[in-house]
């Protein structure tokens, strides 16, 4: 829905209806029509009411929504600074995880021997619960940022490796034939053909790993004893002190962080993948 909305320029809608403007009401942009946003609002209100109903009877299990708002407003700086700490770890981990995975995807797609050596290891790493690795990493790398960044990097590593590898192999035979008759070097095929062809897969990987990087950072903050910053730490300490309103305010901040990341990647996708089927206007 959102894609259709954004791709339909308002000016076209207006010029189309201009001659008949007196008799018909010009259609609103899709996002402004109640039929589009109505269901979302109704669902939100229902969930909010259900929450309030449960919270009214069990204040020690679930805080009331206004209390969550109050907790946030009581010390907004606490949430913003800790969100920033978590975001730093998430993004830094993503940069490392993505970077290493992308380079490895290119190398393994070019060299079969390397693929056979690395892919089984990567798969094992992927199925190992990262939470289980975290304590060991803390022991090895101390209590600073390093272990948290590494946990995040590991959690984002595999989706990027798997997606980009598939993307690099997704080049159509006929296009490769054209490049081969020109005797293009492997580097040229990679640069002009394989990497651009892998772009949709790379973006899809980012779509998965951006929110995942926040998961990685929060998990790392949970596990790393003595962690003093980050929304994960706020959640851990406020849960331990039964400050439920503060805990849910922190969870709300994490959700907001995830939504912002998705918004950024969607905008990025529209710019970079304007040529891809996924971005064509639906008829």
């Amino acid at each position, binding site marked *: 829905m959102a894609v259709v909305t954004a791709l339909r320029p308002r000016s076209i809608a207006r010029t189309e209806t201009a001659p008949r403007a007196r008799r018909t009401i010009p259609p609103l942009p899709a996002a402004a029509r109640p039929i589009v946003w109505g269901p979302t609002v109704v669902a939100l209100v229902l969930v909010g009411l259900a929450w309030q109903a449960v919270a009214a009877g069990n204040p020690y299990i679930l805080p009331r929504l206004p209390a969550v708002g109050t907790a946030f407003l009581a010390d907004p700086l606490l949430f913003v600074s800790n969100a920033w700490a978590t975001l730093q770890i998430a993004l830094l981990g993503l940069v490392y995880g993505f970077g290493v995975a992308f380079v490895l995807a290119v190398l393994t797609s070019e060299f079969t021997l390397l693929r056979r050596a690395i892919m089984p290891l990567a798969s094992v790493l992927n199925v190992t619960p990262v939470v289980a690795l975290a304590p060991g990493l803390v022991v090895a790398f101390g209590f600073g940022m390093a272990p948290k960044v590494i946990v995040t990097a590991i959690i984002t590593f595999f989706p990027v490796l798997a997606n980009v590898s598939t993307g690099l192999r997704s080049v159509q035979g006929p*296009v490769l034939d*054209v*490049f081969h*008759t*020109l005797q*293009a070097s492997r580097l040229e095929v990679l640069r002009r*053909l394989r990497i*651009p062809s892998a772009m949709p897969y790379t973006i899809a990987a980012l779509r998965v790993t951006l929110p995942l990087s926040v998961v990685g950072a929060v998990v790392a903050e949970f596990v790393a004893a003595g962690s003093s910053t980050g929304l994960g730490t706020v959640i851990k300490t406020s849960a331990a002190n039964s400050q439920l309103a503060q805990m849910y305010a922190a969870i709300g901040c994490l959700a907001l962080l995830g939504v912002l990341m998705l918004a950024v990647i969607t905008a990025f996708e529209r710019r970079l993948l304007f*040529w891809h*089927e996924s971005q064509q206007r639906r008829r």
Partner: protein
Amino acid sequence: MTTVTLPAHVLADPEHILVREVDKTYPGASARALDDIDLVIRRGEFVSLIGPSGCGKSTLLRALAGLEPIDTGSITIYGATPREACSQKAVGLVPQTPALLPWLTVRQNVELPGKVNRAASKRRAHRQGMGASSVGRTDPDELLDLVGLAEKRDAYPGELSGGMQQRVAIARAFGLEPDVLLMDEPFSALDEFTREAMRLHLLSLWQRMRTTVVFVTHSVREAVTLSDRIVVMSARPGRIHELIDVDLPRPRDREVLAGPGLHAVEDRVRDSLQRAWDSGAVPSDLVPA
């Protein structure tokens, strides 16, 4: 400026593409894809390969492009092996699908062959042997104009129809000014009306560029309209059944193409195809159980 002198064997025959006693069997296949193929193509000639599916016409084309290894025999393109010819950017390929890069504009797609493997362009500019050494320097805008897509130069392939995309692919291949242009059923995915228009586009482009063309098709009308010579092939094993000269005048304008001469040649090709079909083994999937 240094000149690149090609090996002696390359200089031997700068005017012909020679296919000599070529055999090829795909691993696991029961019949030969190519069986004792002998063919001589003169420079500047437009030759079509036609035959039932499985007759090896596409395999032969791919072998000419150096994309398919052959078991025995030899293929030389103006004296050079297909690989050597490709390393001079002497071979242009138009595959069945347009095979354009969707993230580049139409114009950038046409310019692409010039940008890839620049060393080959230089080699080609200074070579001796293999006959003419024109370098792919045709203006991309002029080419797009010739295929009727001048105003689409800044569009992306996704915004074009299938026929337009294939015209871009043809412009791209001609832009290289290859010594031989290999076209593998380039119009087979298009509807009949578009095919008709595409043939005329290709005829006028060829009339101007006079490139040697090897054209694979399964349409008799297409083969007769375009070619100087038609190679009729039979399947299982893939053999050359008959060579048919198309003695229609050029340029082939609408008058020639509507005349009785065209139909006479078409009938000859159809008869030959029928006999080729009868002579070849019946495909196993058509034999009643």
